[in-house]
């Protein structure tokens, strides 16, 4: 918040004008969310450190996904959705004055629960779609396509059929294509909303490998229902919980080791040991 104030005083240099590169930190302060006037998320303070993987865990309907969508301004796409609070990307509030949602989303990419490659585009065009939307034409398209598909762990499987439609891939491959597509715009943060929930164990393992590989260059925030997955991929964990007729809150956030082996709150312990939710 203080940083966003300073950007107002100094000559306005929104991140869109001078995009930083490399992984960035995300700092959410006092985030609330409403759907059609109903409070669903209350007072979330959470810092997602640069180049780390943060897992958001908790039972269904506790506001994890809503929180994730607030982090890149996808929440406001839903009709009737409102929010309060600040989200600072390397100190600049993405909800600050003069910030454009499209620019924010370019820096903070997202992978959805259901694989959603563009069915009318080829595999290669899918990878390049984000760049095309931003009117960026890379000098060497093929190199970008290869680099991103390698990063997403898909290159070997599709290198001979880059011209095929994105929908011709299997579910797990589609999801990795979506990751490649999200990485191609070189985001500083990548949000993943249960990226493996529709996939088989092998595809899940591939995607987890991908997450570990990319974590150096992009900060990852992942929503997952899978405790083992949270343990395998994340360094930090935040446990969300919505008690009966209450909006969702963060019960506890700490390093993944602490959350799973030494939780402070008994509700966290119950949840990570599968006693409810």
């Amino acid at each position, binding site marked *: 918040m203080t940083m966003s104030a300073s950007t107002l005083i100094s000559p306005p240099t929104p991140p869109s004008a001078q995009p930083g590169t490399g992984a960035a930190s995300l700092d959410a302060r006092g985030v609330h969310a409403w759907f059609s006037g109903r409070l669903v998320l209350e007072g979330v303070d959470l810092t997602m450190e640069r180049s780390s993987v943060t897992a958001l865990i908790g039972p269904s309907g506790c506001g994890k996904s809503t929180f994730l969508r607030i982090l890149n301004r996808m929440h406001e796409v839903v009709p009737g959705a409102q929010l309060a609070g600040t989200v600072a990307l390397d100190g600049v509030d993405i909800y600050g004055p003069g910030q454009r949602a499209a620019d924010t*989303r*370019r820096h903070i990419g997202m992978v*959805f629960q259901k694989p*959603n*490659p*563009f*069915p009318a585009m080829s595999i290669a065009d899918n990878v390049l779609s984000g760049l095309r939307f931003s009117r960026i034409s890379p000098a060497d398209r093929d190199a970008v396509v290869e680099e991103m598909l390698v990063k997403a762990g898909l290159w070997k499987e599709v290198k001979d059929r880059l*011209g095929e*439609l994105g929908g011709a891939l299997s579910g797990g491959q589609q999801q990795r294509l979506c990751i490649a*597509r999200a990485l191609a715009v070189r985001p500083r943060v990548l949000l993943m909303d249960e990226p493996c929930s529709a996939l088989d164990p092998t595809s899940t393992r591939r995607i987890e490998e991908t997450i570990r590989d990319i974590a150096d260059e992009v900060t990852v925030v992942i929503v997952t229902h899978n405790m083992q997955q949270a343990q395998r991929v994340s360094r930090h964990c935040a446990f969300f919980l919505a008690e009966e007729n209450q909006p969702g809150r963060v019960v506890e956030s700490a390093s993944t080791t602490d959350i799973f082996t030494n939780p402070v709150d008994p509700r966290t312990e119950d949840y990570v040991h599968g006693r409810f939710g």
Partner: protein
Amino acid sequence: MSTTTLSPPPLGAAPVTPIRPPSPVRPRDFGMKDAALLALSALSALALVWVVFYQLTLLSGAFGFLVCWYAVFLAMYWLASAQMVDRMAASDRVVTVAVVTGAAVVIGLLLFVVLWVSFKAVPHFSWHLLTKDQKFFQILGPHALSSVGVAHAVVGTLEQVGMAALIGVPVAVATAVFLNEVGGRGTRLVRTVVTAMSGTPSVIAGVFIYSILIINHVLGYSGFAAALALFVLLLPLVTRTTEEVLRVVPSGLREASLALGASEWRTVWSVVLPTARSGVITAVLLGVARAAGETAPLLFTAFGSQVMNYNVFSHPQGALPLVVWSNVRQAEPVLVTLAFEAAFVLLVIVLVLFVAARVLGRTRTRGRRRGRTGNGRLFHRNAQPVPIDLPIDIGGNYR
């Protein structure tokens, strides 16, 4: 099934004789027995209805006979199937027969219209019909038909419909995008208006243009006035079908595009419309094909003409439907033949539009394997996201 496949292979040795694969069966195949049941039901129904309809009662008339025959046939078929299989299967079969009958009637009628027009037109067809107008029409003489043609009407129809599409399609697609992608206040009003508009009798569209523009001398009788009337008809049709097509584009694709930093119009332009491409093209060409066949709106706008008029903006212009309308009632066989030739040419134009819709609608991508995606089916067996097509190809053609 042969039992050899089930017996265990000999232990410790490769089987000496290769195991014969069992012959494949499809449990639901429609076999000879079922065909015989169907045919016998039809036959016995025919006999029964003939006795009751013509002999025992004083009823008469072919149409009534056919309806009764069909109803009795269904009942017979149900009874026979219930006897031979069971009641549930019987109901299934009767419904299947009823549905197939519906499809067969539609296809039969369509084929009948097309074949009948072709039968009347093709023997007299020659290419000069497409180069001459009706200026030198003469009633008598063995070569009366060789001195006339429908070229003026072909030019008129193409210009009027082309003009209507030129104005109408961008407006219609924009309206559909507004209804489905932009939304907000006014959506319901616009949708209601468009729906009401699509119910407008086509003659009203012509009267509208006539009374607003032609009576007030804003425009004379011209192809352009006809194009405006056709635009009024084409707009709601293309809007509604395009909206239907856009609605089935998964919202996940819009989210994916927005999450990549695309603006909303960019999302519509680069993701939603290309995904729905083949459906949108189908919607547009169906609307155009529909407009090409309209007669009533042309009567007092294009007005019709016997001579070639290339200028769409002034003076009356011919059109194929008008040639049909004005000539088919005449006493002169030459004129009646000319009407059928015009109808035939119109059918061919519409056919070309349909084929174009299918060809253009096909997604073109490098190295794409056919059959896996984009085969025009909306709900793919493997639930892969495929390019969206219109759910029913001719859905837009109904009122």
